C-alpha cells in the first residue's frame, strides 16, 4: 500500500520534523516500509498556469499548432504544441523556458521551422496521472503565471508499506490510521476528521434495509441526489494516483478516496436498483455479473447484497454491473458496511477475485467505522459539489457488536515482560496517543482498547506490551542476559547416533551425504522401472508427480545414483531421512527415520561391494553400540530388490534394517556395467537396542597360540553355522576365529580358519588346545565341513 505524506499531514502537524526519519521510525515501530521512497514532484519545476490566447495551424505540420499563451508575463509566449485538445481560452500547465521535467530543461527551440519558447504539458508529463491524451486542462480559477506547485500538491513523499506487515492491523488500511501512528511516534496530536452531522437528516425517510444473515455485522446507508460534478478535484486525483489508483469519475474517485483515507470500503448503487436492501446468502450457486463485466460463479456460501431477492453486489468484494451508477442515475445509495472477515476471505479465494475492498474486509474492519465514513464522505461530497442533497435518513442496522475490550495490568507486569524500566507516565502517554483510554490507579492500569484495535488485534495484556514497547522503540532497549539455574543437557539417542553415523560414513568410508524429497517421484521411478508402491498420499499436491509419500528411501537413492552415473566410476551415498511405512489404528501415519546407504561401482565385483557395505554396517553397530549385527536371508518384497543376497539386518535379534543388491532389471537401467548395493536402517529401532559396554581386556603376559585348519565347506553352510561349532567349545581360552584364506576349485570351496587361543593365567599347552580343536573338528564334521 502506498502512502502520501501530504495526506498524513492533513491529520497530524509534522512541520519541522524530518519526514524520512519518521518513516524510518514507522518502519521499526509499526509496519515494514519498502526501501524505495518516492519524492514526487522533485524532478518537476517551473511549471505555471497559462492561458491559450490564440491557436493557429502550423504551416508545415498537420499535427502541430502555433499558440500564443499568457503565462502571467508582460508579453504572450509563442509555443508550438502537438496536443489535439488545444483551444483558445483553455488554461493549461505550461513549462516555461528554464523549467525542468525529469532530465529535461526547457529551452527555446525551433519546431518544424517555428520557435517554441516553452511547452504545454500533459498530466503524465508532470507525473500526476497516466493521462497523456492531451495537455492538462486547468479549470480552477487561478491567475496565469501561478506556479502549479502553489495550487496543487505535486510535491509529496510517497512510501510503500508491505501489505503483509499490516495483516493484523485493520486500522492501518487508510491514511487516518497511519496518521495516528505518526502522531504517536512524533508526539503530536491527531486531528479529528471533518465530518457532516448526519443527525440533521433523522426525520427523513429511512432506506428499506434488512440484514438477513449473521455474516453481515453492520450495514449503514444514505441516499443522496443531484451530484453534478463529474471530474474530481486535481489534488484528489493526484493523491489517488500517487497511491496507485486511477481516477475514474468524481463519485468512484470519492469512494476510493474515502477507502484510502479511512480504510472503510464504500459502494454507490443506483437507488432505483436497491429499493429493498437485503443481505443474505442464496440456497444455490448462480452466475453474477460484476461491474467489471465478468460473469462470476457465486456459490451458496457467498454473502450477497440484494434488492429484495435480486442480487446486486457480492458483499465486501465487488458491486454488480446492473446496479452501477449510470448516465441517467439521479439518486444514489451509499453503502458503508462491515462483514465477517473469514467469510469475505473465503469468498475471495473461491471467486479468485481479490479487490481493494475485500483485502480490507479480510482484516476484520471495525464496524464503528461505517457511520463516520458516511459522515466524512458527505463532507467531502458537499465540499466539492455543493448542490448535493441528502434524500434519506441515515439508515443503520448494527447486527453484531464486538465486545468492548477492557484490560487491567500492573506496572510490575510491564517490568517483567520488558525487562527494562518504562515509567508510568510514558506508558499512559503512549497508550493514549494510540487511542486507548487509560486510568492509572496506584500501580494498576485500567485500559479500554479503542474499537479499531479491538476486532481481533488487541485482546490481552501481552498485546498491550507490544503497544508500549514498539512506540518506546526496540533500539532503545537496554539488553541483558537471563538468570537461570544450571542443569545438564542430555542428547537424544537417535540424534546422537545420527551424528556418529554421519561421521563414520563420511570420514571412514568417504560416502556422500545427500538430501531428497519425502515423496516418490513418479517420473524418475518410472524411468528406472521401479513401481511406486501404494502409500499415504498428498491431498493437495499441485504436481501429480509427487503425490505418494515414499515408504522406503532406497528407490529415492537409486534415482540419485542414476543422476550421478558419470560423476565417478565408484561412489557411495547416504541420507538420514523419513519414510511413512503404514498407518496406525487411529489412521495416523507411521513415520520412520531411516538411514539409507547405496554403493555404486564400475570397478568392483558385486560381491566385494556387497561385503564393503556389510562391513560398513558392522562398523556402525560396533562403533555406536559396541556390538555386531546378525543377518538373516529374507524374501524380496519390492521390485528393486535382487532375490539373492537380500538380508535382514539384526541387532540383538531385532530387525533393524535390510541389505541387498539392486534387481538386475533396474540395475541395468541405471548402469549396465555397474554393481549397486543398498542398505536401509531404521534409526529408532537401532537407537532402541542397548549399548553394550566397552569391556577392557587386559593384555595377557602369556604367549597366545594360533591354530589353523583348512576345511572344505559345502555350499549350503554359512560361516554363522560353523561358528556354532565352536561357540561352546572354547573353555575360556578360544579368543577368536577368523577366515584367513579361502579359495574355490571347480568342485569345492575351501577356507582356512585361524583360531586364536590365549590365557591370562598360564602358558597354554598344545595338548589342551588340541583337545578343543578335536571337538571343534568333530562338530564341523557333523554339518559336513571336513578337513581338507
Amino acid at each position: 500500500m502506498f502512502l502520501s505524506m501530504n495526506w498524513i499531514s492533513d491529520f497530524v502537524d509534522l512541520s519541522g520534523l524530518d519526514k524520512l526519519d519518521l518513516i524510518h521510525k514507522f518502519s521499526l515501530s509499526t509496519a515494514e516500509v519498502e526501501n524505495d521512497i518516492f519524492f514526487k514532484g522533485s524532478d518537476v519545476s517551473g511549471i505555471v498556469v497559462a492561458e491559450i490566447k490564440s491557436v493557429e495551424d502550423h504551416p508545415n505540420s498537420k499535427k502541430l499548432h502555433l499558440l500564443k499563451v499568457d503565462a502571467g508575463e508582460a508579453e504572450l509566449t509563442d509555443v508550438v504544441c502537438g496536443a489535439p485538445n488545444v483551444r483558445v481560452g483553455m488554461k493549461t500547465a505550461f513549462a516555461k523556458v528554464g523549467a525542468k521535467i525529469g532530465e529535461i530543461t526547457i529551452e527555446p527551440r525551433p519546431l518544424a521551422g517555428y520557435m517554441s519558447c516553452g511547452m504545454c504539458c500533459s498530466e503524465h508529463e508532470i507525473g500526476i496521472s497516466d493521462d497523456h491524451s492531451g495537455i492538462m486542462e486547468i479549470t480552477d480559477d487561478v491567475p496565469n503565471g501561478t506556479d502549479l506547485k502553489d495550487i496543487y500538491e505535486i510535491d509529496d513523499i510517497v512510501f510503500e508499506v508491505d501489505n503483509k506487515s499490516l495483516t493484523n492491523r485493520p486500522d492501518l488500511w487508510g491514511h487516518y490510521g497511519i496518521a495516528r501512528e505518526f502522531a504517536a511516534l512524533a508526539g503530536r496530536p491527531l486531528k479529528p476528521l471533518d465530518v457532516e452531522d448526519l443527525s440533521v437528516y433523522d426525520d427523513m425517510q429511512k432506506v428499506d434495509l434488512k440484514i438477513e444473515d449473521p455474516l453481515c455485522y453492520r450495514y449503514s446507508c444514505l441516499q443522496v441526489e443531484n451530484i453534478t460534478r463529474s471530474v474530481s478535484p486535481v489534488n484528489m486525483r493526484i493523491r489517488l494516483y500517487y497511491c496507485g489508483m486511477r481516477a475514474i469519475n468524481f463519485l468512484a474517485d470519492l469512494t476510493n478516496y474515502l477507502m484510502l483515507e479511512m480504510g472503510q470500503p464504500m459502494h454507490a448503487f443506483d437507488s432505483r436498483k436497491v429499493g429493498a436492501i437485503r443481505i443474505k446468502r442464496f440456497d444455490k450457486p448462480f452466475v453474477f455479473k460484476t461491474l467489471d463485466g465478468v460473469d462470476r460463479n457465486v456459490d451458496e456460501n457467498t454473502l450477497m447484497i440484494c434488492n429484495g431477492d435480486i442480487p446486486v453486489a457480492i458483499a465486501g468484494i465487488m458491486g454488480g454491473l446492473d446496479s452501477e451508477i449510470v448516465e441517467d442515475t439521479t439518486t444514489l445509495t451509499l453503502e458503508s458496511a462491515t462483514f465477517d472477515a473469514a467469510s469475505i476471505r473465503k469468498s475471495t479465494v473461491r471467486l479468485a477475485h481479490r479487490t481493494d475492498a475485500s483485502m480490507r474486509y479480510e482484516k476484520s474492519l471495525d464496524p464503528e467505522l461505517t457511520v463516520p465514513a458516511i459522515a466524512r464522505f458527505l463532507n467531502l461530497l458537499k465540499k466539492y459539489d455543493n448542490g448535493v442533497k441528502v434524500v434519506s435518513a441515515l439508515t443503520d442496522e448494527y447486527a453484531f457488536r464486538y465486545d468492548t475490550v477492557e484490560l487491567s495490568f500492573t506496572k510490575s507486569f510491564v517490568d517483567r515482560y520488558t525487562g527494562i524500566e518504562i515509567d508510568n507516565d510514558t506508558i499512559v502517554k503512549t497508550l493514549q496517543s494510540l487511542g486507548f483510554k487509560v486510568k492509572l490507579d496506584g500501580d494498576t492500569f485500567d485500559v479500554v482498547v479503542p474499537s479499531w484495535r479491538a476486532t481481533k488485534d488487541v485482546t490481552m495484556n501481552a498485546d498491550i506490551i507490544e503497544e508500549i514497547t514498539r512506540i518506546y522503540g526496540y533500539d532503545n532497549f537496554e539488553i541483558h542476559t537471563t538468570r537461570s539455574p544450571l542443569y545438564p543437557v542430555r542428547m537424544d539417542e537417535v540424534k546422537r547416533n545420527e551424528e556418529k553415523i554421519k561421521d563414520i560414513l563420511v570420514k571412514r568410508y568417504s560416502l556422500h551425504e545427500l538430501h531428497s524429497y519425502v515423496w516418490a517421484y513418479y517420473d524418475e521411478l518410472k524411468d528406472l522401472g521401479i513401481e511406486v508402491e501404494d502409500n499415504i498420499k498428498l491431498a493437495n499436491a499441485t504436481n501429480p508427480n509427487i503425490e505418494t509419500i515414499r515408504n522406503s528411501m532406497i528407490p529415492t537413492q537409486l534415482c540419485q545414483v542414476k543422476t550421478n552415473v558419470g560423476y565417478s566410476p565408484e561412489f557411495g551415498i547416504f541420507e538420514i531421512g523419513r519414510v511413512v511405512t503404514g498407518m496406525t489404528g487411529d489412521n495416523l501415519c507411521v513415520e520412520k527415520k531411516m538411514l539409507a546407504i547405496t554403493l555404486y561401482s564400475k570397478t568392483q565385483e558385486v560381491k566385494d561391494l556387497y561385503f564393503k557395505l556389510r562391513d560398513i554396517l558392522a562398523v556402525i553397530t560396533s562403533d555406536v553400540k559396541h556390538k555386531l549385527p546378525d543377518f538373516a536371508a529374507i524374501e524380496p518384497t519390492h521390485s528393486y530388490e535382487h532375490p539373492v543376497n537380500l538380508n535382514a539386518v539384526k541387532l540383538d535379534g531385532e530387525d533393524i534394517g535390510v541389505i541387498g543388491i539392486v534387481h538386475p532389471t533396474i540395475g541395468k537401467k541405471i548402469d549396465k556395467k555397474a554393481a549397486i548395493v543398498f542398505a536401509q536402517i531404521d534409526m529408532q529401532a537401532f537407537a532402541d537396542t542397548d549399548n553394550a559396554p566397552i569391556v577392557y581386556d587386559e593384555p595377557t603376559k602369556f604367549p597366545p597360540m594360533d591354530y589353523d585348519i583348512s576345511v572344505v565347506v559345502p555350499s549350503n553352510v554359512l560361516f554363522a553355522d560353523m561358528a556354532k561349532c565352536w561357540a561352546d567349545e572354547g573353555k575360556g581360552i578360544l579368543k577368536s576365529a577368523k577366515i584367513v584364506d579361502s579359495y574355490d576349485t571347480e568342485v569345492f570351496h575351501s577356507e582356512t580358519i585361524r583360531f586364536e587361543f590365549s590365557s591370562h593365567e598360564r602358558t597354554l599347552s598344545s595338548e589342551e588346545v588340541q583337545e578343543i580343536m578335536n571337538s571343534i573338528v568333530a562338530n564341523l564334521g557333523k554339518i559336513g565341513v571336513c578337513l581338507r
Partner: protein
Amino acid sequence: MDRISELREELEQKLSQTTDLISIDKVRVDFLGKKGRITALLKGMKDLSNEEKKTFGAKVNKLKESAAKRIDEKIENLRRAEVEREIAAMPKFDITAPANLERGSYHPITLVQRQCEAIFKSMGFTVEDYPEVVTDYECFESVNIPKHHPARDMQDTYYLTNGQLLKSQTSAAQNAILRKYGDNLKNNGVPIKAIFPGRCFRNEATDASHENTFFQMEGMMVDKDISISNLIFFMKTMLSEVFKRDVKVRLRPGFFPFVEPGFELDINCLICGGEGCSSCKHSGWLELCPCGMIHPNVLREGGIDPDEYTGFAFGLGLTRLAMMEYKIKDIRDLNSGSLKALAQFTDDE
C-alpha cells in the same frame, strides 16, 4: 709359513671374495664356529709341550680375536654399502603432483545445523527431533492458529489424505516440547531451553529462491521473568556466534500468531556491513529471523501458566543460512542429489 699365518691369509682371501651378508656368515662359521678351522688348530695342540701349548694357544687366541674383528669390519662395510645402495636406488618423488582428495562429504545443511547446534548446546539448550508428518493440532491449533485463521493461508500446507500434514513450520514441535519439559520447569525450576531443527514443507512452485522442502531451526526458552530485553540480548549473542562476528540487530514488529509481541529481526548486512549494497537491496539490513515472546495461548496449551512463566521463541532458516554461508545461489541445488554440487562439503567446521 705356519698354520696360523696360512689361516690368516685364507681368511683375508675369503673376506675379499665375500660381497653379501649371507656368505659372510658362512665365513664366520667356517673360521670361528665350534667346529671351525681356528678351533681345529687348538685340537692339534695335544702333541705339544706345555710351554709350546702356552705359546701356540696365545697365538691362536690372537688369531681368533683378529679374525672376529676382521669379520665384523667386513659386515659393517657390507651393511654400509647396502644402505648406500638403497639410498642410491631411491627414486625422487614428485611431491607437487596433485593430491588424491577422494573423500566423503556432508550435506551443507548438516554442517550449518551442527554449527548452530554447537552454539546452543554450549548454552545449555537441548536439541529436539520431531516428525515431519504432524497433525493439524500440532502444526496450527496448539500454536494459536485456529481454523480459518488467515495465517493458515499464508503458508500453503501439504495436506495428506488422512487429514495429517507435512509440517509447514518447526513450530509444530512447540507444544510437545513444552509438555515434555513443563514438569521439570514447574517442579524443579529448570528453565525450558530447546532448539528443534527440522525439515519443513510448503506447497509452492520451486525456483532458484523457492523450495517446497527446506530446513528451519526453531528455539525457545521459558522461565519465570523471561523478558523482551533477554530476547534481544540472546538473539544478538546467538547471531554473533553464528556469523562469528559482532552483529548489529534491530527488531521490527512482526505478526506471527504464536508470539506476542512478535518481531522481525534484521541484522546489518554481512556483505556491506550496513553501508547498503545489492544483497541488502541498499537498506544495509537483512531480514533474518522471526522471533517474539511466546503467545500466552501457546504456553497455556502446552500446560504452562502464562501468568507465572514467560518465554521467547525464534526461527532461523537453516537452508537460508547454508546458502549465505556457502554462497549457494540456487536453492534447488540442495535437494538436487547431484554429487557435482554437493560432494564439495568435505569437512565439518
